[in-house]
């Protein structure tokens, strides 16, 4: 591959899209991956106030839901509750009808950055979860290779984390989540620290991988462009306290070309709605407290 030799971060994704994803692969049985939050409130034990105030949302199996909102609106808390890393103060979080008790490999998370283990190679990072689950080494190898192939990093398995570019690291992080065959994929602004070009490539790649595997995805970002490119449905959040203000479906079929004018247009509309929302909330808060709220 000459492209990867030139510049590893800008490797051209080569993914063969196989029709029919995980939903059809699991023959019989109901498709899994229905994530539900019901009237979730969250006030951190030491924090000043309510971070999340009555969040209700549902991700259907195979659906890609993106939560957009300003920084500090509780997006990450929302994700941590879904992951089971944080217990909500009240309300229920459920996966396929069962209460979420703690973190586990059925809800794999892709973190913002720097969450790969620097003492392991890329392949060992991807295989880590399988090792913890007790998958024998032989089977592990095959599944790791498959996951690395999905993010087109087959040749980078032996590299250490610090030998990978930022974009490659996040692809390894995605592979590390995918290999667990989770019911839900949770993503916490995974591309926030990347440059715009790399981010576009990764959007395209994530889109293809998702199309291939059809995981339920809950993706959190502050970038409207990102939301519009990836989402089946966009949830707009406001801050102080965190609430879901609006639900915007994105009725453009997948896989989407990243430069389509439709996306740009929709992005414009969503941006306007968010702007309106922010202004309105600010005015509300100002009226209540008598000072401008943080935007």
């Amino acid at each position, binding site marked *: 591959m000459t492209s990867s030799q030139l510049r590893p971060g800008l490797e051209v994704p080569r993914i063969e899209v196989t029709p029919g994803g995980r939903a059809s692969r699991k023959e019989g049985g109901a498709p899994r991956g229905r994530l539900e939050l019901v009237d979730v409130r969250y006030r951190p034990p030491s924090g000043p106030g309510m971070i999340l105030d009555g969040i209700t949302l549902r991700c259907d199996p195979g659906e890609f839901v993106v939560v957009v909102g300003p920084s500090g609106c509780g997006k990450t808390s929302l994700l941590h509750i879904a*992951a089971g*890393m944080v217990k909500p103060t009240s309300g229920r979080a459920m996966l396929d009808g069962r209460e979420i008790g*703690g*973190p*586990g*490999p059925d*809800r*794999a*998370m892709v*973190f913002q950055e*720097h*969450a*790969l*283990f*620097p*003492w392991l190679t890329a392949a060992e990072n991807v295989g*880590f*979860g399988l*090792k*913890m*689950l007790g998958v024998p080494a032989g089977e592990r190898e095959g599944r790791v290779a498959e996951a690395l192939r999905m993010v087109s990093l087959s040749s980078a398995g032996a590299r*250490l*984390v*610090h*030998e990978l570019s930022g974009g490659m690291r996040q692809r390894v992080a995605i592979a*590390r989540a995918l290999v*667990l065959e989770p019911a839900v994929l949770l993503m916490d602004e995974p591309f926030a620290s990347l440059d715009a070009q790399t981010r576009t490539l990764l959007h395209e790649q994530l889109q293809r991988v998702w199309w291939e595997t059809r995981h339920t995805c809950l993706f959190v970002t502050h970038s409207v462009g990102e939301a519009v490119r990836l989402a089946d449905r966009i949830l707009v959040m406001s801050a102080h306290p965190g609430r879901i203000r609006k639900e915007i479906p994105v009725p453009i079929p997948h896989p989407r070309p990243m430069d389509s004018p439709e996306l740009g247009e929709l992005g414009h509309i969503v941006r306007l709605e968010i702007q309106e929302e922010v202004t309105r909330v600010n005015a509300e808060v100002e009226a209540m407290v008598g000072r401008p709220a943080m935007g």
Partner: protein
Amino acid sequence: MSTPKWKPWSAAPRWARRAQLIAVWVAVVLAWEGAYRVVGWRPWIFPAPSHVLDATLGMLNVRTGFGEPLHGAWPGPPGAPGAGSRSIVGSPLVVALGVSGARLAVGFGASMILGLVVGIGLWRSAFLNSLLGPLFLGLQTLPSVCWVPLAVLILGINERGILFVLVMGSAFSMAIAMRDGLRSLPPIYRAAGRMMGARGWRLYVHVLLPASLPALVGMLRQGFSFAWRSLLGAELILMTQRRGVGFLLSAGREFADVAQVVAVMGVMVAVGMVVDRWVFAVVEQRVRTRFGLVAAR
């Protein structure tokens, strides 16, 4: 800005810097020896390098006579075991290094395990940390030989007494270092580990300990120098059947052999430096390289 005429010393090639350093040290030693020969310093008060060399080789059963004899048995060490033996392997210094090395291996090993476990405890439990953290920090101000009287009274003048002093002198600092190492871990590793199903002891073995490896190596490095110092102090005071390096120092004092005293001190520093630079520094460099904390050479 004008370019400076001189280059910083660190910009010189490695061999040139090495050569300069060695030249300076050689000059210092020659001046010292010269002062003794020309001015006529009294060697039984302050020995010349030639005496120290004689004494060092004497402890290895190699008889030399670079300086004038200081006492009847010169240059053989007075009061040392193995006087009958003539081989290097059976010489006082080699035997003493073996004895001290064995004690160090056992004591440092115990102290490492203790430091690791207690350090994890302090990190896990805020209660334990508030209870014991300040005490441990306070105990670090205590010179390790201050444990000797307690060791003598409780355990007696024996191996266990020496090991007690060694462990007390190094375990607390390692526990504190371990705690601080774990504290500085990014919480995201823990979250990622738990997300991938690592729980309980597996979270420690597979995530938290490897993640704190850079801190852990630093802890061991510091702990080793604490352990070595404590051991020598204990050996200096506790005269047991088996005689370590500290004993040789004490014997040199008993027989007023100042050359042996300086020679043994030199050996103590050399052992500490060699282990630090050729064991711990190498391991630390390798860990830091793997973690990408330094550019690989």
